[in-house]
């Protein structure tokens, strides 16, 4: 690519500047004393209604990296990459049934994080720390991936070197520091409207230019037939179980992450969350259409260096420069919102469940906000260093392991809402067993999220995270039974009305 694409770059800079101003202005939006209380900085004052929550969770769950990576996977392997669609459908019945209950517990007791809920339920510092550390470790590579997504579009505009990403991230870090969750909540409006415009234009104009959806699918089918292997417009027989378990496991893991839970805890009421479970699937339609951009890359006969370039090169090839710049700005801003919420979620965990629990139990509300603000800076610098100094593949591998890890906090966080039978000891050992087995299995399979099990001559391939979750629950149940025999008098979870 010769030099900088000035038209695209100017449009990009305009929108980037717009959201930067909004980010700093956000501290005064729905005004509250941002630095006085962690509820203000870290949860935006726990006052977000249905629409703000819709934009915030939509902006933070469907990340910039998704816009690059899902079409890239669909481009590379076909139907198998489409598991993101069933995943982001079945997540919502789960959100509807469980998240309002979790919100009520958090609201009543002033909890800010998942680990707060776990500590409140089981009164176990060890289990609280396990959940907090898992959340922080799983989030770091996720932030790094947002940077990779931003890097792909910056590179597509002809900018070279590391400075554009460093500059973008410093700006992000500063307004997150000063405005807290209000900044990504306000920016999410701009980001999501831009993404909706880009995708709706793309899914109408691109097939029109390429001869319709029939031609798009047929071009992809020809390419997969030529390519061979485990690719194609439908799944190979050996991929069915992997597809279903990836969808289910990812759906159960999705709202265990600190960034999604932050969106849940920041909402105004349990009903806000219920309404969002009904309305958020609109983003899933968008995601499914974005995934199809991977097939459109075949129909447009693009020559790609890497599958990750499918979306940016498609826009550059088929659209005028100014619209490509608009699309790239949408993707880059789409990286800022989740990166901000993720760093806030991780900072909340560190503040509440490490700093307050181990360093300064008598910390004031203002002190909590101050610790969280500084932690959010440290987290972002860490993610930036990750991208600048380590191979990109590490971030991808760790994010994959992160999904597996965060899923292991599911029993500790969710079971307590329904039953007080489980004991903290059991949940802690189950967590350790799930993380240990899952990590070892993924590692020994060359960092693939799939494991195989041979039963009666047939081989079944499934998502490691879900296998680890089953092991986790089994260990938790067995240990709970044993502990109850030794110490029958104590109740598992503390009483709650």
């Amino acid at each position, binding site marked *: 690519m010769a030099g900088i694409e000035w038209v695209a770059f100017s449009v990009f800079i305009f929108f980037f500047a717009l959201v930067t101003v909004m980010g700093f202005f956000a501290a005064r939006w729905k005004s509250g004393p941002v630095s006085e209380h962690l509820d203000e900085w870290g949860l935006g004052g726990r006052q977000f209604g249905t629409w703000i929550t819709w934009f915030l969770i939509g902006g933070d769950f469907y990340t910039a990296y998704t816009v690059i990576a899902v079409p890239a996977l669909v481009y590379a392997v076909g*139907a198998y990459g*489409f598991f993101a*669609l*069933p995943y982001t*459908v*079945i997540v*919502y*019945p789960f959100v*509807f*049934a469980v998240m309002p209950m979790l919100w009520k517990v958090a609201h009543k007791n002033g909890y800010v994080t998942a680990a707060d809920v776990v500590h409140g339920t089981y009164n176990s510092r060890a289990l609280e720390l396990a959940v907090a550390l898992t959340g922080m470790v799983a989030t770091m590579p996720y932030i790094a991936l947002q940077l990779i997504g931003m890097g792909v579009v910056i590179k597509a505009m002809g900018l070279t070197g590391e400075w554009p990403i460093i500059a973008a991230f410093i700006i992000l870090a500063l307004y997150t520091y000063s405005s807290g969750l209000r900044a990504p909540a306000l920016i999410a409006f701009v980001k999501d409207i831009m993404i909706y415009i880009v995708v709706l234009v793309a899914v109408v104009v691109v*097939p029109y230019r390429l001869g*319709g*959806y*029939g*031609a*798009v*699918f047929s071009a992809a089918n020809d390419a997969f037939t030529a390519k061979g292997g485990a690719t194609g*417009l*439908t*799944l190979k027989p050996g991929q*069915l*179980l992997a*597809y*279903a378990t990836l*969808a*289910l496991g990812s759906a159960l893991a999705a709202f265990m992450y600190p960034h999604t839970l932050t969106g849940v805890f920041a909402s105004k*009421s*349990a*009903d806000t969350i*219920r*309404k969002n*479970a*009904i*309305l958020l*699937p*609109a983003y*899933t*339609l968008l995601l*499914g259409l974005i995934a*199809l951009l991977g097939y459109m890359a075949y129909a447009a006969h693009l020559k790609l260096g890497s599958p990750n370039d499918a979306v940016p090169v498609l826009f550059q090839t088929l659209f005028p420069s100014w619209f490509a710049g608009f699309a790239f700005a949408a993707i880059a801003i789409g990286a800022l919102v989740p990166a901000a919420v993720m760093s806030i979620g991780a900072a909340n965990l560190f503040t509440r469940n490490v700093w307050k629990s181990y360093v300064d139990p008598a910390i004031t509300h203002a002190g909590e906000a101050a610790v969280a603000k500084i932690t959010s800076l440290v987290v972002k610098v860490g993610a930036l260093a990750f991208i600048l100094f380590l191979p990109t593949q590490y971030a991808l591998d760790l994010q994959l392991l992160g999904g597996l890890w965060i899923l292991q906090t599911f029993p500790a966080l969710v079971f307590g809402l329904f039953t007080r039978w489980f004991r903290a000891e059991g949940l802690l050992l189950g967590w350790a067993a799930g993380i240990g087995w899952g990590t070892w299995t993924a590692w020994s399979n060359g960092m693939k999220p799939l494991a195989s099990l041979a039963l009666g001559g047939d081989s079944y391939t499934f998502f490691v995270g879900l296998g680890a979750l089953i092991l986790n629950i089994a260990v938790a149940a067995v240990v709970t039974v044993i502990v109850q025999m030794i110490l029958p008098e104590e109740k598992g979870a503390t009483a709650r009305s």
Partner: protein
Amino acid sequence: MWAVLLIPFIGLLWVPFYNFSEPSLLGFPFFYWYQFAWVPITSLLIWLVYRNRTPDQSGE
């Protein structure tokens, strides 16, 4: 009523239901439009459960 929430899990996780190309719709193979169709259906099912909750479950 809450069992309605399980319907999308059955429809989407039992992959042999939809792992084929025909009948296609507007150029979309069955595999794709079937899964897309579950998005509005799921919203509708959740909305039905939401509408039919007993009042004491609603709330702040």
